[in-house]
């Protein structure tokens, strides 16, 4: 895919719909559960039977306050539930209960980290220096509002499920509580967009508001995209790409749409306000519906619900119970454990990872080494096994004692790496495993001298080379000694012994 030329910049605003972690639905006692048979979590309220009335789930208010405080926003003392009226088969009441003019949360922000020089330059791809941690800078993204609303059900048009060309409706999702979180148009690249989404998702998970699992549809994104010439004050005409359900889709769809708009303008055309669909197979956006034909939702305050009043004392109580947020934790990791900004960022991407690191570091007594093990080895295992930290048998106790063994010189890093996968899979006691496999480091001078003598004797010509002033084969000899010791020899001592014996 070609990139947007330097002359232009993207202007992006995101609307995120995130399912809230509640036992029951927003206005009905039906349980919120995933993976149930269709229509097995449906109360008369969800069916919109004649005579039913909605009752607000107070847990949702709690979670909305948590989000508001975590994004530095105002939690409004009074907000109003409104009806958004439209007909669709998976919308049983013929209206969605949402918040319109007066949302529960307004005026917040979220800081994201963007690559230095990477922002606002179109795709920003290929800027990463290979292997090195990228240089990051902070950028603040405004959050206009967050409001409470209910999800709709699902219409199923699949003939295999419906059994005919009829459509089927599953109302399990109807009434599931959502927060819609709307950003300001402060985002300038597809990478910033995903950085914002990752940051938001991380907060939502930290504060227990949402599992925000994109695959389960718990975290969905609509992107408003326009382009303009760099330096222009006015925004271009924007389009809205609906229902993006993976980070890759978000990035690709935004780029595809920006380029579509660019090509349109280059060809002398004009961008028209529209709702766009994104086809991930073809990596293309296409117009679904023109905005000028858009529905009139006839919003009005829902007379079945009273205004939502939130007492300042309640807000303060929630504030008191908020866990440490990602940005606070990152700053603390940098100062408390002398970690790099990059490592601190990686370790605080999720609350569980941060907690895992911190507990391990306490047990190992070596925070920097622990950070290396977690960011490198633990994350690699997670990636390879495609699982979550909780799925591993590895605990902070196990990893902590493993690192401690290395720090004490009782286990070489190489041998530690050898038993690590087993600890990840089966758990167990690293020290016992080390002893059982005979991997305890040999630091006894006599034993090491024995291995060194053996290697020198067997490699006379190589030894001669070193004596002639070529240091290169030293590593080879090191390796031979390590091999002879079955990896157990303490490398520092081996190096010392080799140098002494060869050079005299």
């Amino acid at each position, binding site marked *: 895919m070609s990139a947007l030329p330097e002359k232009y910049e993207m202007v992006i605003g995101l609307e995120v719909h995130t399912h809230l972690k509640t036992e029951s639905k927003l206005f009905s006692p039906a349980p919120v559960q995933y993976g149930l048979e269709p229509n097995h979590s449906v109360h*008369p309220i969800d*069916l*919109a*039977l*004649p*005579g*039913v*009335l*909605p*009752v*607000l789930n107070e847990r949702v208010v709690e979670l909305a306050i948590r989000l508001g405080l975590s994004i530095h926003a105002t939690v409004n003392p009074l907000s109003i539930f409104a*009806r958004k*009226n439209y*007909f669709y*088969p998976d919308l*049983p*009441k*013929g*209206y969605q209960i949402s918040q319109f003019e007066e949302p529960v949360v307004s005026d917040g922000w979220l800081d994201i980290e963007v690559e230095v020089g990477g922002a606002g330059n179109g795709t920003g791809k290929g800027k990463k220096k290979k292997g090195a941690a990228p240089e990051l800078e902070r950028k603040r993204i405004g959050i206009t509002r967050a409001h409470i609303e209910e999800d709709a059900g699902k219409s199923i048009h699949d003939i295999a499920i419906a059994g005919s060309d009829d459509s089927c*409706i599953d109302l399990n999702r109807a009434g599931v509580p959502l927060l819609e979180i709307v950003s300001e148009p402060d985002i300038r690249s597809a990478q910033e967009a995903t950085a914002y989404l990752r940051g938001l998702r991380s907060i939502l998970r930290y504060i227990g508001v949402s599992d925000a699992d994109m695959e389960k549809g718990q975290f969905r994104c609509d992107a408003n995209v326009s382009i303009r010439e760099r330096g222009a004050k006015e925004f271009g005409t924007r389009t809205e790409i609906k229902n993006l359900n993976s980070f890759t889709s978000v990035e690709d769809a935004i780029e595809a749409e920006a380029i579509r708009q660019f090509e349109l303008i280059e060809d002398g055309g004009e961008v028209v306000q529209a709702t766009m669909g994104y086809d991930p197979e073809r990596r293309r956006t296409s117009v679904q519906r023109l905005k000028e034909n858009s529905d*009139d939702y*006839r*919003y*009005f305050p829902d*007379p*079945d*619900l*009273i205004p939502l009043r939130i007492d300042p004392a309640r807000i303060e109580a929630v504030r008191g119970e908020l866990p440490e947020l990602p940005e606070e934790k990152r700053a603390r990791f940098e100062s408390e454990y002398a970690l790099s900004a990059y490592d601190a960022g990686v370790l605080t991407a999720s609350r569980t990872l941060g907690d895992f690191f911190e507990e391990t570091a306490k047990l190992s007594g070596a925070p920097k080494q622990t950070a290396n093990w977690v960011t490198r080895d633990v994350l690699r295992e997670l990636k390879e096994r495609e699982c979550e930290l909780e799925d591993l048998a590895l605990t902070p106790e196990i990893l902590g004692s493993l690192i401690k063994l290395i720090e004490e010189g009782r286990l070489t890093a190489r041998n530690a790496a050898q038993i690590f996968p087993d600890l990840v899979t089966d758990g167990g006691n690293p020290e016992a495993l080390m002893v059982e496999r005979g991997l305890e480091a040999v630091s006894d001078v006599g034993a090491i001298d024995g291995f060194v003598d053996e290697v020198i004797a067997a490699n006379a010509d190589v030894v001669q080379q070193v004596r002639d002033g070529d240091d290169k084969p030293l590593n080879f000899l090191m390796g031979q000694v390590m091999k002879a010791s079955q990896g157990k020899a303490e490398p520092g001592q081996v190096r010392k012994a080799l140098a002494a014996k060869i050079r005299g």
Partner: protein
Amino acid sequence: MGSSESLLAASLTEQREGLDRGDATSSELVDASLARIAAHADLSAVVSIRDAAARAESEAASKRIADGKALSVLDGVPILLKDNIVQAGEPATCSSRILEDFVSPYDATVTEKLRAAGAIIVGRTNMDEFAMGSSTENSIHGEAHNPWDRSRACGGSSGGSAAAVAAGLVPLALGSDTGGSIRQPASFCGVVGLKPTYGRVSRWGLVAFASSLDQIGPFGRRVSDCAAMLEMIAGHDARDSTSVPEAVPALGAAMTGDIEGLTIGLPKEYFVEEGVEPGVLARVREAIATLESAGAKVTPVSLPHTEHTIATYYLIATAEASSNLARFDGVRYGRRADKVEDLQDLYMRSRSEGFGAEVKRRIVLGTYVLSAGYYDAYYGKAQRVRTLIRRDFEKAFESCDLIVTPTTPETAFGLGAKSGDPLSMYLSDVYTVSANLAGLPGLSMPCGLSDGMPVGLQLIGKPLDEATILRVGDAYERLTEHHLARPPETN
């Protein structure tokens, strides 16, 4: 007349005593009620009957009563529900083709409470479709008739409940009141009808017309009967967010017969000669004089925004109705058009075939007043005027304890007289809608006849003060005999 027949015609208090004394059993009383409903089928007041279930329930009630274990004052007493108040396993057509075959799987809160109190629900009453109307002519069950004169309307929308109580089919029935739908038919049929304070009675299980105005209330032949039924159905309900938390006072105890020193406000805007039937005005003035003679004081009050009440009401009620009725879409329950071509066709035809003309008129009007560009001018402005109307009452109640007015400007009109003229039909709610807009309790009770037809006296109370209007209404009954007047027996 057998003992069960005469007991059926008595007040609730007398029925309770008669049942407890064994003058008749609940089964006999329920049988008498079912027989009388059948004999008065020409009224079209009752649209579905629970004979087998009601008989079984009354047998159980008879046993309880014989054992001296009556559940409540209503135990074993036959009652009727308006067809928009749901009962599990029973139809709730709301007089609409779109719900013709609908059976509710759940109970309304009031249904639950009445059943728990031992009341025997013998059937369901006719109404204007979705409670939209003032005559019970907009109904798939056919127009209901006024027991006083079958060529006249019984009022609406709760006309079936009013006619049934007036004709002595049951001592008590429930209705709903959005703009006068309990008080206006009570007035037309010469019975007592009470619209409680908004939020006093749970709306859970009441098929919504206009959510911010709807309220369930009782019909009876005596004020004290309505008070007893209100006590039974009122109270906070967690299933209705708009139900008020305040506890219901003991209303029976409030009815002492003593109204000495109470101040009655007479809104000057309601006592105008123009547009009011002279006989109506005369009966209401006589009633006020009677109350004065018992020691009540009378003071003029003003409700300056009265002229805007009808417009305000119809903007708000239709807006809410247009949204409340969106759920009747032919998808999950209710009428679905045959052989539809696509989704649009399914909606269009199911709703076109399912709704009657008046309902369509109000959906169209309500959709219009909520649409972009018109919202502020109509719905927004109506809400602001509603606030002014509420303030009018707050101000008036600074100088009086209750307000007394005619319930309607005229007695029951002829069937068909207004059905071609929606606006004149809407104007028959002129005295009743303000209590809905302001959320106030309102009672209508008979105060005599005009040209042989009953006239209703309306008593409007302060918010949550049903006790005062019930006390005054009960005192008025003690001073007069208008509540004893019965429509002629034609069968």
